């Protein structure tokens, strides 16, 4: 098991280095870029040249690459072009926001998805099942930014039920302890702030959860149906076990195996969905950071670090999922 983890980590590092190198050279080969971004309409040949030299863009590309590698290895991703802050600061500030949102979404997706999928499977072919299937199909087919717009329009404008955007009411979010506002409120005993942050979380989390939710429902349903067809369920029936026992002990655990994998794969969808959701709800997380870094002038340092981070998160989560798979499925344990 340790070997497997080690092996995967080594592969991860190799993948990341390749990814970084790729991104670096690609970014440098593009027109426009930071110089333009920094100077705006007021660029004169003079200021351009100054800036190009200051940023070291006049040096040979491999010198730049060497410097970049050295910096990355020492954990220094440079400063954001847009804000001048160290990239690490920018990212570590946005990271909790996205995690807070993603965790809430995944809680919704799992918390609703597994029971709904299970119920649909139990009432297979009935109205409830068919309704669930149709709703999930639509859930998969709807552009989530559009859904976000609809929800926002209905629930924050037509009726002022939820706040339209942001993570917390202006002026309340001063407690910067962990960066997770819901948690911060609890830690500093400002329960008002906590409740307020939670209230802000509802709509974005639901929007972001749509696709994973639909997918988890479908996978759970399919998986439960598959398991119900398995020989060992027949064995359990032949033992005369009670229905409840069979469901709890035999069906659910086996049915969850593919669901676990799906959840891992959905982290990818979550990261991507966060970009859209955060834009809709002005949620100051990584997604917003990505959009800003792209449209606000190709903020290379931030982009590079973000791409790397997304890859790390995605790969690590999948590693964790595989490991948790190994924990639920004893067959995987013997290596």
């Amino acid at each position, binding site marked *: 098991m340790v070997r497997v983890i080690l*092996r995967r980590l080594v592969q991860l590092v190799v993948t990341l280095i390749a990814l970084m190198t790729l991104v670096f050279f690609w970014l440098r080969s593009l027109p426009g870029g930071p110089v333009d971004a920094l100077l705006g309409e007021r660029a004169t040949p003079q200021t351009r040249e100054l800036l190009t030299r200051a940023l070291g863009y006049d040096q040979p590309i491999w010198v730049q690459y060497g410097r970049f590698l050295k910096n990355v290895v020492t954990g220094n991703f440079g400063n954001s072009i847009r804000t001048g802050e160290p990239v690490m600061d920018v990212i570590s500030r946005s990271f909790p926001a996205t995690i807070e949102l993603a965790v809430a979404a995944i809680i919704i997706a799992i918390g609703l998805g597994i029971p709904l999928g299970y119920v649909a499977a139990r009432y297979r072919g009935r109205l409830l099942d068919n309704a669930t299937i149709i709703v999930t199909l639509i859930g998969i087919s709807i552009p989530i930014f559009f859904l976000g717009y609809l929800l926002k329009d209905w629930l924050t404008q037509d009726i002022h039920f939820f706040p339209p955007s942001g993570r917390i009411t202006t002026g309340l979010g001063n407690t910067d302890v962990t960066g997770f506002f819901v948690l911060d409120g609890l830690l500093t005993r400002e329960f008002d702030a906590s409740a307020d942050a939670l209230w802000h979380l509802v709509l974005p989390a639901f929007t972001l959860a749509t696709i994973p939710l639909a997918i988890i429902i479908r996978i759970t349903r399919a998986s439960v149906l598959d398991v119900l067809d398995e020989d060992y369920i027949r064995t359990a029936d032949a033992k005369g076990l009670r229905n409840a026992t069979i469901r709890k002990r035999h069906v659910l655990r086996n049915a969850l195996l*593919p669901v676990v994998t799906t959840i891992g794969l959905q982290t990818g969808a979550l990261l991507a969905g966060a970009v859209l959701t955060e834009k809709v709800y002005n949620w100051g997380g990584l997604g917003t950071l990505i959009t800003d870094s792209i449209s606000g002038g190709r903020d290379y340092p931030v982009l590079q670090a973000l791409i790397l981070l997304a890859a790390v998160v995605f790969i690590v989560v999948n590693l964790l999922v595989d490991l948790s*798979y190994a924990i639920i499925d004893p067959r995987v344990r013997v290596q």
Partner: protein
Amino acid sequence: MSDALLEIDDLKVHFPIKSGLLFDRTVGHVYAVDGVSLKVRRGETYGLVGESGCGKTTLGRGLLRLVEPTSGTITFDGTDVRALQGEKMRLFRRRIQMVFQDPMSSLDPRQSVESLLVEGLKAHGLHKDKADVQRRLRSTLDSVGLPASALNNYPHEFSGGQRQRIGIARALVLGPELIVADEPVSALDVSIQAQVINLLGDLQDSLGLTYLVIAHDLAVVRHISDTIGVMYLGSLVEEADGDQLYERPLHPYTKALLSAVPIPDPQVEDRRERILLAGDLPSPAAPPSGCRFRTRCPWSQQRCAEERPELRVFDDTGQRVACHFAEEILRGELEMHDVRAELVRPDSDTAPAVGAELIQTRTDLPAP
């Protein structure tokens, strides 16, 4: 013997077990075939029996070089098969053909019977003359008892027995000298088995084929074979003429095997003395020292653990056996003793292997 069409000497097929941090290293081997020597005479049927996992299939594939043997020599009609390279090997394949166990999976479901049969001809440049090809196909189909109209149909439209006939026709169409049949009937219903067994016999008579038949059903093997080799865990433990083997099994494993085969006759069954073997076949990745069979052998002795018995000619009947104590057992000088069943871990893992791939697959939309 000079009339040997096929001669295998000390053939070994070892599969490496790989694992490693970044690059795979070989951490062990599956000793699937571990030193097998045998001869198949022209025109005879050589039957190979043994329990599942003992290496029969691997031996069959190894001698066709469908898996590359680790060591040993294969001589076919004077040709050193292992020395053949590339195009030479490819063209040589025409002379040895194979019939597979599962008549469904061994036929490409997307190809009609015609294209299945023509494929071999094409590979050997025999497809140029259209009329000749048609003649050839028809006669081959006819010889396996299928109508010519079958040419346009697809494998899944046939019953199991018919599919197996197609498989045989595919092997026959190239006019091979040796046919290696890997469990040709074990996937078939009992009532169909006989049809295929008879067919194989008829073809041998009419075409003078030589067979190497692999099976786990001793009764079937005995019915069709002239010579029978008994395999256990990668090696031959006994070899004899079919009747001889039945009359006088020398190796303890053969004895046990014979006594375990059920016979559809209550009177025989009621009278039978069974030699019940304890436990399972050990893993070919970690075979026992000395005699491979000693862990389950009721006659095993100290020596069996220390020294691996050679397959030796037992007497002038030509029967060969790999047991140190064959004589003693035959003469009843050795007492049977109890064998404690050892737990054998299955080595084939059915569960997905974590770590095999960085990320296995990814789909944005789920499987339903």
